[in-house]
């Protein structure tokens, strides 16, 4: 007798009651992006705008995901040997330590096989929105988390860094509407990080309102900081949807 593969109703209910299953974004360009239709700010993770990104092991073009539905793979762990104390202190390591990171350059992210991640404000009409400030409001994870850029003189600017005094009022980055910029995302330990970011700015058509047109939204982004995956591990992460319990 052929047994039809089916899930017992109780298991089906179990599936339905586990709302969050996320796909894994493992390569290609994408942004922590903001939409602002009708003056309402909303986060989405937008991938594959220029070239297709790799999500769930498959090429995906120009697609937006709810932050809860996508995890960002950080499968690049390297040793940092440096005398640049600002860089080491911001990441939260000593020279010679390993750290995991997403590089902010297309050439490096291509060669290392990582996502290229930025903040994307291109969906916001620059005539309707003032500058947007992204504020780090929460990080849960096994290690320290930082977001930085290196300027042309080799000087790092840490926009977010839990290594520098935990989460403080200095953990913010402000960008004009319409702009998109890529950043280095660094993690000291392997594991799962949930990073909560608040975005706020002024919706100019509503500046005359009682609230001055101030709008904000919050999003939690999940980074899966993993060791360089073996082929088998790649199959596990890339081919299947991850079942995860959404934390309250």
């Amino acid at each position: 007798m052929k047994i039809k593969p089916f899930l017992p109703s109780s298991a089906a209910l179990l599936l339905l009651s586990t709302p969050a299953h996320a796909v894994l974004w493992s390569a290609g360009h994408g942004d922590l992006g903001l939409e602002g239709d009708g003056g309402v700010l909303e986060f989405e993770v937008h991938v594959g705008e220029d070239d297709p990104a790799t999500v769930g092991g498959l090429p995906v073009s120009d697609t937006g995901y709810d932050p809860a539905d996508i995890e960002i793979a950080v499968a690049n762990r390297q040793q940092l040997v440096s005398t640049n104390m600002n860089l080491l202190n911001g990441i939260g390591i000593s020279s010679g330590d390993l750290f995991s990171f997403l590089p902010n350059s297309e050439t490096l992210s291509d060669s290392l096989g990582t996502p290229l991640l930025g903040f994307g404000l291109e969906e916001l009409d620059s005539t309707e929105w003032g500058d947007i400030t992204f504020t780090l409001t929460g990080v849960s994870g096994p290690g320290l988390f930082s977001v930085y850029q290196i300027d042309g003189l080799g000087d790092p600017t840490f926009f977010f860094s839990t290594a520098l005094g935990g989460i403080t009022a200095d953990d913010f980055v402000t960008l004009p509407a319409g702009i998109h910029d890529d950043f280095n995302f660094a993690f000291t330990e392997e594991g799962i990080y949930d990073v909560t970011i608040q975005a706020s700015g002024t919706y100019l058509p509503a500046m005359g309102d009682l609230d001055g047109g101030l709008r904000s939204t919050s999003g939690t982004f999940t980074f899966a900081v993993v060791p360089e995956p073996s082929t088998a591990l790649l199959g596990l992460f890339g081919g299947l949807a991850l079942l995860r319990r959404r934390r309250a």
Partner: protein
Amino acid sequence: MQLICVNKFLPLLLVGLVPSTKAVELDLLYGHYEIQTDYRPGSGWWLGQTYNQNDDFNDRSQIRRLEASTTKIVAPPRAITVGNAATSFLLPPGQPLWLLNQGFQVGNHFLGMRVVIDPFVFQTRVGTNYTNSGTGSVSMRLASVTGSGPDRSGKFALWESDPFAGQIVYFNSNDGITADDEIPTLPVGTHSHFNWGFTKPGEYKISIEAFGRLRPDGDPTSMTETFTFIVPHTGRLAALDAELCVSGTDIALVPGDRALGVAFGPRRSFVETTATTSGPPGAAWQTPLRLAAAGWAVPDHAGISAILASSGADLGSGARLTLRAHRGPGHVIALADSGAVLFDSSDGFGPADELDLAAVPVTGTLYFTEKGLHTLEFAGDAQTEANSMTKDTGLVIRCGAGLPVTYTFADWADSHERTHALPPGTLASPSGDFNGDGRTHRLEYLLDAADVSPVTGGSATRALLEPGTGFGRMTFLRDLYKDPLLGTGLQLQSGFSGDLTAWTYLTASKVGFPLEFFETGADQGNARSLLMMRAIRRQTPVSGRNFFRLRGQ
């Protein structure tokens, strides 16, 4: 014909015109632009500057293309920095460096390289190998760097900052230009940002060759395009060294810096002084003086045409310069090297203040009796072969006695108070308006280089219709010392409106769009000063009403 910014009689014909996307000369001073490489089978290559009307890279219809031959990239104040050990591949540490940063900075260029080419047209290069796998790639090679910047030993480099705070250098003219000066692999459909660095003021004509091999046989194809970058001069002068120049119907008193090799258009420079140790009675500040009518033989012309700056007024029939007005506190006295008085404002202005600039330059020293901001206004009179012309007003030189070009609002208020014998503090409030002309002291300070006085007023703007484009524009002098476009502190913002009620202002964060609404440069010449003429321009709306204004924030 003096055209006004509001033209109710604008013919419908002009309203319907599609503005030319090729003819407009544009200065890009800050904002997000790309050096873009296009290739389409059948039509071939196109390289130029581009931007997106909506920043949506997926939508090629939103890409707006600018011709490299008419588009200049000018380094803004935000780019001014100093090299360190990390940039020693380009210049010695501690030397001035103009850096267009790889990461976004308010008030700086955010200049990327973008390749808009379909997949599977080009082979993909890895190292020195080309294959028909992948989606394809092109390479960018630095072919040459020429112009007045390199001619005064200015160097150019393009590099990437890596996450380890290291530098991946692609182009570097400091160690010579060879086949190694390349970005070997830019995948089709890619967009990358880089650091662009320059080490001296002047013009840099950077020729870049895009090349690749076509599928399936690897046929090579390439195109070279030249991009113009300008590093502005400071406009600061340590002497009043000026030539009376004439060309056609134009006459100008053109100051410059001989050692640096630059001549400045009107109001594009600022003479600074030293304290007087010995001079005529009352003299407190001084600067060397040299006046002639031979024209300039220098490579850089900032805010003035090369022809005018190089055409001396003395063609054998005399050239005369007469001081007609002095605006500033105290008096100004010029003494020749011999000790003879050249001009002295304390006894009024008249024929005795006339200088004959023919034959030999007049050399001496210019003295000021009081600290402050001084505007010297001259009349020039030259007999050319064709005609003789006189300009009674407008040959203006600005000086700071005891004040650098970076003078503060408080310095400004104090100087104008003493000039007009006002009680101290009269002009101290930035939001005040002593003369009731509708412009705050803040705005008048921001426009001081244009001779806008908080007491006597003065016009700072000129509006006109661009012929043939359907655009209107308003020109004004921007002093980048007072507002370096950082989005903080005092800001001079240009804006437009169609109904005098709803205004849109451009700011350090709101750059506008070059072919839609934008603040561009309005300077002649191959060079720029940090005192630069700008123009806010916008296509005339269907209503025919195009209003522009400046505000001080």
